[in-house]
């Protein structure tokens, strides 16, 4: 089985991403959206948290949320893939279930 995990909180404010990474299985998909998108940026204090699991987990970031926050797509951590809402829907369909780390 493979699950989609969703994280909508800033990793600088809340512990949701950290817990998601600790408690999700190898091979899972993780979608960062809403304030969760800040975790996808290069050069931050939490970059390594994401970068170290790219490959083991598949990391996605919701483009509309990322753009809303004024961040540049060239600054996304390598290996993180940008999706839109339709892509979010596809991820929900493609995985067995969704675990929300609200």
């Amino acid at each position, binding site marked *: 089985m493979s699950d989609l995990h*969703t994280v*909508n909180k800033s990793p600088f404010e809340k512990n949701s991403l950290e817990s998601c990474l600790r408690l999700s299985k190898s091979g899972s998909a993780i979608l960062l959206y*809403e*304030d969760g998108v800040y975790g996808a940026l290069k050069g931050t204090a939490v970059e390594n948290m994401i970068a170290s699991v790219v490959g083991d987990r598949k990391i996605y970031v919701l483009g509309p949320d990322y753009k809303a926050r004024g961040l540049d797509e060239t600054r996304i951590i390598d290996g993180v893939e940008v999706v839109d809402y339709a892509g979010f*829907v*596809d991820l929900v369909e493609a995985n067995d*279930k969704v675990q*929300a780390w*609200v």
Partner: protein
Amino acid sequence: MKFSIQVNEGPYQHQASDSAYQFTKAALEKGHECFRIFFYHDGVLNGTRLTTPPQDDRNIVKNWTELAEKYDLDLVVCVAAAQRRGIVDDGEAERNGKDATNIAPKFRISGLGQLVEAAIQSDRLVVFGD
């Protein structure tokens, strides 16, 4: 595929309701079925017709109502959560002796069993919250 959506926050304070709306719309446009949208916790506050958001901003309640009209969606507000937060339809007004109602068009008030049923009947439950 058959989806159900749970919305845990009210309109405007958190993005949860916006995200749920955008997701639901995208799913429907891709031809998926939405079995039920269940509004829980402060999510029940999406179901009031008394909001008047600024003209230059989106109208979240109206967005839900119009999406429900277009796709014949089942928008269910949890009764226990609604009682705590003051979302009232005709039946609730009569039962609890309230002198007004505020439920928005296409929303209905029902029990938590509707959420459990949605989780049983649907292929996926997607939760949007704080």
